[in-house]
């Protein structure tokens, strides 16, 4: 007998802090759960940092020019699925552009956070 398994969308609890927001979505980080939530395309998905990096690589490797100029129906949308990652996105050209903006912005914030953390911990403390 097959069992139906209903997936529950992860909730944006208090432990999640906003990393970067655009008009089309938002990325949150939880230090407690050491994970990230991506709110985009009418869904909320949880990723670890490595998976999110792979998602970014996948989104940025799509050839937008080819997608825009190809008239066949199959190029109207792009399916983005990552190996060993339970989430899948089916995105239009406009959504991909918006997703790129969101992901790129979030990674700039991660880099900025790295710089800030490094500066905090590299300052010598004198008694």
């Amino acid at each position, binding site marked *: 007998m097959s069992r139906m398994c209903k997936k529950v969308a992860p909730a944006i609890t208090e432990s999640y*802090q906003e*990393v970067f927001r655009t008009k089309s979505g938002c990325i949150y*980080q939880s*230090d407690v759960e*050491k994970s*990230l939530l991506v709110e985009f395309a009418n869904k909320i998905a949880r990723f*670890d*940092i*490595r998976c999110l*990096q792979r998602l970014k690589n996948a989104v940025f490797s799509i050839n937008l020019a080819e997608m825009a100029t190809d008239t066949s129906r199959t190029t109207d949308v792009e399916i983005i699925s990552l190996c060993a990652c339970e989430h899948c996105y089916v995105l239009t050209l406009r959504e991909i552009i918006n997703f790129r903006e969101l992901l790129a912005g979030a990674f700039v914030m*991660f*880099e900025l*956070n*790295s710089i800030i*953390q490094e500066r905090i911990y590299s300052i010598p403390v004198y008694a």
Partner: protein
Amino acid sequence: MKDLMRLRSLLGTEVEALLNNQIKMEAYNSSVYLAMASWCDRNGFDYSADHFYKQAEDEREHMLRFFKYVSDMGGTAVSPSVDGIPQEFESFREVFESALELEVKTTQAINNIADKCYKEKDHVTVEFLNWFHKEQREEEYVARRCLELFEVIGEEGTGRWEIDKAIPSVSYGNE
């Protein structure tokens, strides 16, 4: 907010990408040396064939060192695909010219990684690269000396036979 990227991996995104490129380059070099060994074997240069078989093994060892380092430091080491290996060479001399060019490009690539590491203050990776700097000193020396045999001995008459015999004796011993 915790720095999740740093907690996950010691390597920055760009350094990791450069190290993965180097993994690919070392794998390519290993395959090219194997092609050179094959060419030497089928053209009767047995000693040179042995020399290139050994070089192919060394390059694979280098690739594994990079691979393991990326993996150990929390990065994603990418198993490389290698294609476009030249199988034919115009002459015995061209084989050694190509070998020297490979080594020069490798030294440049490793220097580029070190430049990036200094820029990003990644001294841990710089320390890892020091072994390769020393190794490249030897690799370039051997490749250059082998090529110089073509001038010193000359290719006329039994020259190529003598050059082939002299190849195993080329080594870098001034550590």
